[in-house]
């Protein structure tokens, strides 16, 4: 529960389900040192520079071990193991082992073939897919075009909840098989990022025949077409997978995968130390503890990297308080982001100037963030008419005081701390912000409805789709879309429309760079920072690769991990000095 990314986050849709990287396709900063090598730089980067720091790539190492059990942690019980109905990370982390995607994302965020190859018609609306000849289900029957058609039709069926995939198939015209292994998908419009929709696992059609889709037995025991197959699921306890003897294509290096369902971070950490777990996510506190814990250094290593997630403070652009871009800019200038990076994130964070993480392909590193400048902010506020006319210490305009509620989800600690820093700075500038912690379901309901003045949020990590349209275009105001801040700028609207129809990548990136500057100056929200993701890993596991999409949502991702010797065996002995990530 300590995962700080609990804000409303981008639909991570396709990408987060992706299962793969082609390891040969060149990852950044390949270490040429021995196994425990890491490339994590310990230097804080307060500036918004898209530097490739923090990437770990052990894919170049030849696997020195095979077999055994990999014990991973899930923070909650999956709701389902039906690929179409999945809604959260636990589902994705398990399904990645048993279900191959039609297309995959590699560690460079590029779409690569998975179960299928594809071609696109010149108008960009028609996709022709060809499934791999050798792709089979765990009983040896081939994966057929009918399975893909069934899967996509299930996603768009309003009687089936498909919270993750539903929106990526908006505008679907038709999907039909053209042969045993070929099928065609047609869309109403051209969309630059359409291919990412197909980072999609398939369901076996015949196993759902004559069954109620929502309660089919396969939802609890998925039928595999991947490197592993399902063995058992004890609710709230564990999920066990084993090698699929009929696996085609790439195979994993462990014989069994056990997912332990452990809701408490501190217990997962103890479990890692006790040697009955190979990985767990750490929050900032957990990282601090691990870095000073000799027991941790003896058995484990810290893996830390930046992904595509970022924190921000949403402002309701329709509110009389925040309708003026000068005011929003002033608020950004009142937030001392360098201090947040330094103190709150202990240096492992980067300041943002726009609605993408610095590692996003479209981030323009030349757009510098607004500076922390209380004096400049004060004059902007004065110019916008917000002055303290009655001398009570709070600015006012037309009889209304500059005071508002700042919502924050109770589940996030980082968001809460950012808010406290911000509120203190605002108070000095004559603005009163009251922090209101709200439980997640209630919080996200208010945010999605646009029913708030300011709210502390985080953007999702694992979606490489940089398209800002669903979140910032004025046609997407609630209740139609997810532009919950009610941002509107005619120039930005036009650029967003152009970009999503633009098929040429470099021209598209140029449009996004123009947009980036508009976002910085309009400050529709306060862009805060992107902070690092932190994991504790047993030294018994090697072959880790991190990417801006995280370690899990890529191909082969966790399937490329391998066992470095038996527990307690020579290969598992800690090196004499802890790995550089610890320092």
């Amino acid at each position, binding site marked *: 529960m300590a995962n700080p*990314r*609990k804000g*409303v*986050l*981008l*639909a*991570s849709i396709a990408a*987060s389900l992706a299962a793969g990287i082609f390891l040969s396709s060149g990852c950044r900063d390949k270490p040429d040192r021995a196994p425990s090598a890491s490339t994590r730089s310990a230097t804080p980067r307060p500036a918004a520079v898209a530097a490739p720091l923090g990437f770990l790539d052990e894919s170049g190492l030849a696997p020195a071990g095979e077999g055994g059990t990999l014990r991973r942690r899930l923070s*909650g*019980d999956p*709701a*389902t193991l039906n690929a179409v109905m999945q*809604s*959260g*990370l636990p589902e*994705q982390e398990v399904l990645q082992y048993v279900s191959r995607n039609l297309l995959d994302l590699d560690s460079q965020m590029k779409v690569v073939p998975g179960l299928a190859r594809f071609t696109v018609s010149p108008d960009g609306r028609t996709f022709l897919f060809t499934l791999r000849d050798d792709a089979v289900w765990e009983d040896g029957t081939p994966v057929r075009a009918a399975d893909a058609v069934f899967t996509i039709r299930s996603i768009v069926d*309003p*009687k089936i*909840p498909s*919270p*993750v995939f*539903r*929106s990526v198939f*908006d505008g679907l015209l038709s999907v039909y098989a053209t042969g045993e292994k070929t099928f065609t998908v047609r869309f109403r419009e051209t969309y630059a990022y359409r291919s990412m929709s197909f980072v999609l696992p398939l369901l076996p059609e015949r196993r759902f025949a004559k069954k109620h889709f*929502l*309660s089919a037995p396969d*939802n609890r025991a998925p039928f595999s077409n991947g490197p592993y197959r399902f063995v058992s699921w*004890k*609710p*709230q*306890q*564990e999920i066990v997978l084993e090698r699929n003897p009929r696996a085609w294509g790439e195979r994993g290096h462990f014989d069994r995968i*056990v997912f*332990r*369902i452990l*809701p*408490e971070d*501190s*217990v997962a950490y*103890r*479990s890692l130390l*006790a040697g*009955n777990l190979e990985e767990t996510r750490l929050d900032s506190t957990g990282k601090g503890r691990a870095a000073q814990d000799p027991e941790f250094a003896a058995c484990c290593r810290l893996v830390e990297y930046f992904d595509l997630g970022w924190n921000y403070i949403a402002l309701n652009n329709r509110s009389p308080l925040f309708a003026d871009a000068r005011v929003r800019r002033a608020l950004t200038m009142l937030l001392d982001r360098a201090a947040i990076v330094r103190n709150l994130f202990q240096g492992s964070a980067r300041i943002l100037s726009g609605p993408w993480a610095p590692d996003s392909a479209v981030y323009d590193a030349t757009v510098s963030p607004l500076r922390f400048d209380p004096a400049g902010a004060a004059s902007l506020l004065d110019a916008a008419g917000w002055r303290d006319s009655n001398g009570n210490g709070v600015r006012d305009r037309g009889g209304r005081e500059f005071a508002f509620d700042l919502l924050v*989800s109770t*589940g996030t600690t980082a968001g809460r701390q950012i808010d406290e820093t911000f509120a203190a700075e605002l108070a000095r500038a004559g603005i009163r912000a009251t922090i209101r912690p709200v*439980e*997640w*379901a*209630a919080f*996200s*309901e208010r945010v*999605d409805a646009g029913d708030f003045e300011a709210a502390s949020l*985080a*953007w*999702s*990590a694992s979606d490489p789709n940089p398209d800002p349209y*669903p979140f910032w275009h004025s046609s997407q105001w*609630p209740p139609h*879309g*997810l532009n919950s801040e009610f941002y509107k700028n005619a120039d930005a609207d036009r650029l967003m429309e152009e970009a999503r129809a633009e098929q040429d990548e470099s021209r598209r990136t140029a449009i996004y760079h123009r947009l980036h500057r508009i976002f910085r100056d309009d400050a529709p929200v306060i862009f805060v920072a992107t902070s690092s993701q932190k994991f504790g890993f047993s030294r018994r596991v090697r072959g880790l690769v991190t990417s801006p999409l995280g370690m899990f949502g890529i191909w082969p991702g966790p399937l490329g991990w391998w066992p470095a010797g038996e527990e307690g065996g020579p290969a598992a002995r800690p090196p004499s000095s802890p790995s550089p990530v610890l320092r």
Partner: protein
Amino acid sequence: MTRYIARRLAFAVPTLAGIVVLVFALLHLAPGSPVSALGEGSGRRVSQQAAHEMQRLYGLDRPLPERFARWISRVARLDFGESFVDHRPVLARIGEALPYTLVLNGLALLLTLAIAVPLGVAAGGRPEGSLDRASSAILFALYSLPAFWAALLLQTLFSVKLRWLPLYGVASDLPEGGAAGFLDRASHLVLPVLCLTYGSLAFFARLIRSSVAETRNADYVLAARARGLSRRQALWKHAFRNALIPLVTLLGLVLPGLLSGSVIIERIFAWPGLGRLYFDSILSRDYPVILALSLLGAVSTLVLTLVADIASAVADPRVRDGSIS
């Protein structure tokens, strides 16, 4: 006696109805919905269209009275519906978690009573004696230790450092049969049972102590002593038996707790019980599961307090004839 029971039953029915209506209304009027609850921690933002479709699918677009009528008519046929989260029957989910919670809480209650009864009687036998003072200091110290903190300390000591006991879970990876399997399961119970026990000790021991202390100078106890019974016999056979009456009432209130589970202990020890199910269901606004669990709690509380009332009426004629309540 029959009239007494009938009167209690007549009160139970409107109470139950009140609870059901209240829980349903509170739940559905609380902010948030099963759709808005999605995405916590996973970073997914559900598109507005998908959200509307899901609301419709779960019937959440219908007016509240209609939803209530539909739910209550199904419940009357003992059909609690399907979970919004995994679409399995609610009763299957509860049935899965119930045995784990019963075992854990049942053992904890037995252990509590096994310690609290002799301790309470001994302390009540000599109020303000050295045993009374020492036990009250220790019990209150234990009572004030937060369970999550104690649980983590015990885990660090016994599971990480000494490696005597398993860290969490209900059984080891490859469960063995027979005696070894039983021992394995028992060892998984030690820490959670301990954590659930130490806090409630004070509660029970102090209650028994005070009622024993009250009855120990009663005429019939003095008479028993005058008849030549030893202090010990008088205490256990006469003072303690009468002191049991408030304990029976208390048990009526405590036993339903066997079903409710402990959220904190179940989370820390990754125990797949009802407490976790309830907690997760509330966070995910899984209305059918929350309603069924609330109903289960309400019914078992009503039934067991009824049983306790009847039991104390049987034990104490003054309750039967209404001279005390």
